[in-house]
């Protein structure tokens, strides 16, 4: 039974990674850049909930809405100010800029909130569920329900809506998409908005699961989600979901049965192994170079 409960908390952790990984993979697929500041959006989202609920006394729901809004505005603004001017610059310049943005957000949080971690408000009050000997934490259930709904919604959006199809078109061939009348800039803006909204939701569940948030809280889940995106095949949306969930499960099982200290090393070891066997990641597509 404890295996099952470890598995479920792994799934729940993994679905948080998946939400973050989706932002990485969509931005990579559409804007062709690695947004290393993406992890810090999680931290900003979580701090927004803390300020709204703990300091301003707003109800949790409002705090969550505010957090999503602020993250979306921030993500779109960062893209406009920091990345858009570099649209035709070498990838390395963009990467370094993204790392700069990441440090900027962390330092800003350090100035505003100080280095001690702040406790995250209790936004979810669901009681643990007991099934025979198995106990499932309320947060796990809520995380799984919400993330599953988001992933289904996102899949439908990408596959069925006009904007979603335009995003796939831009990700495949930017110039050809432009020739169809699709505004690449607008598509990229929407991508950053969606990615940041997902990151803020991830921040919420992350805060609810771990209880404390500091200026550097976003970087580790950010890196792991990036790993998850690569693991699943960077640029692939189902890949990011699968990669994130597998990563969470592997991490949790490694913690429970092998070693807490080694769990991260094991996670990265599995990634290296998968990439050796399948360099494009689990669901990554081979770049089609048909002329």
């Amino acid at each position, binding site marked *: 039974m404890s295996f099952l409960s470890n598995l479920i908390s792994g799934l729940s952790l993994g679905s948080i990674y998946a939400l973050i990984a989706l932002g990485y993979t969509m931005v990579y697929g559409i804007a062709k850049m690695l947004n290393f500041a993406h992890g810090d959006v999680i931290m900003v989202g979580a701090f927004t909930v803390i300020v709204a609920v703990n300091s301003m006394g707003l109800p949790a729901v409002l705090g969550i809405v505010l957090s999503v809004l602020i993250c979306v505005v921030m993500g779109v603004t960062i893209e406009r100010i920091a990345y858009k001017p570099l649209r035709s610059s070498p990838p390395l310049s963009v990467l370094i800029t993204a790392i700069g943005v990441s440090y900027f957000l962390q330092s800003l949080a350090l100035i505003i909130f100080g280095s001690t971690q702040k406790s995250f408000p209790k936004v979810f009050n669901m009681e643990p569920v007991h099934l025979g000997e198995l106990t499932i934490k309320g947060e796990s259930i809520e995380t799984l329900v919400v993330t599953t709904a988001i992933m289904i919604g996102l899949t439908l959006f990408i596959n069925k809506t*006009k904007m979603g*199809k*335009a995003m*796939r*078109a831009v990700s*495949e*061939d930017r*110039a*050809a*998409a*432009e*020739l*169809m*009348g*699709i*505004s*690449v800039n607008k598509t990229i803006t929407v991508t950053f908005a969606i990615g940041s909204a997902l990151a803020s939701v991830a921040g919420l569940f992350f805060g609810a699961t771990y209880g404390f948030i500091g200026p550097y809280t976003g970087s580790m889940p950010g890196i792991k989600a990036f790993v998850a995106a690569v693991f699943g095949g960077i640029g692939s949306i189902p890949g990011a979901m699968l990669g994130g969930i597998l990563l969470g499960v592997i991490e949790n099982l490694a913690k429970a049965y092998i070693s807490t200290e080694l769990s991260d090393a094991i996670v990265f070891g599995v990634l290296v192994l998968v990439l050796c066997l399948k360099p494009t990641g689990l669901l990554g*597509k081979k770049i*089609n170079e*048909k*002329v």
Partner: protein
Amino acid sequence: MLKVENINVYYGQIHAIKDVSFEVHEGEIVSLIGANGAGKSTILKTISGLLRSKTGHITFKGEDISKTEAYKLVPKGLAHVPEGRRIFLQMTVKENLEMGAYTKGENMAEDIESVYNHFPRLRERQNQIAGTLSGGEQQMLAMGRAMMSHPDLLILDEPSMGLAPILVQGIFDIIKEFHKMGTTILLVEQNAEMALSIADRAYVLESGRVVLTGTGEELKASDQIKKAYLGGN
């Protein structure tokens, strides 16, 4: 319909297009021919806003479009089938057609139906991933996709590239058909023979310059054209 005046296009230090001017009148089929690297695709990309000229003007239906962003030209009535087709290989045939009508929105089903009537092969394969189509089918899809926006001017960059002779004939028949429906056509071709036989007028390019112009008939009879076609200097 389209007026290109004195454009100069650079790739970094490379001066690819030198003082090129030409015109396409409403209802015409105009062809640009020239050897590999002469600058044909560069000119087309400049017209459709993917590249910028340092000088001169490009006027489409009386409006200066030299600085207009590429994506804004489709609703103005310009469609460009780029070199190498550039269909969305990971999307289905039908989704590719939908992308062609991205800026239009209305009568989508009818327009798709009309493309299927022109290219019955595409109807059979409408839910197939475009990357699995044959080269000829991909070219049909690229042309059908461009027609989805009902362009006034259709720009075609080497539509016969890589196709077997029978298919080349088919593609040219379709071009004539689109032309009869009232579409003005700017056609770039390696296959000068074919291009000149359907073009009202043509311009011959060499190393980024227009070196010769005339009606399709005139150029077909000229010796110089053979030189350009064979890649002479």
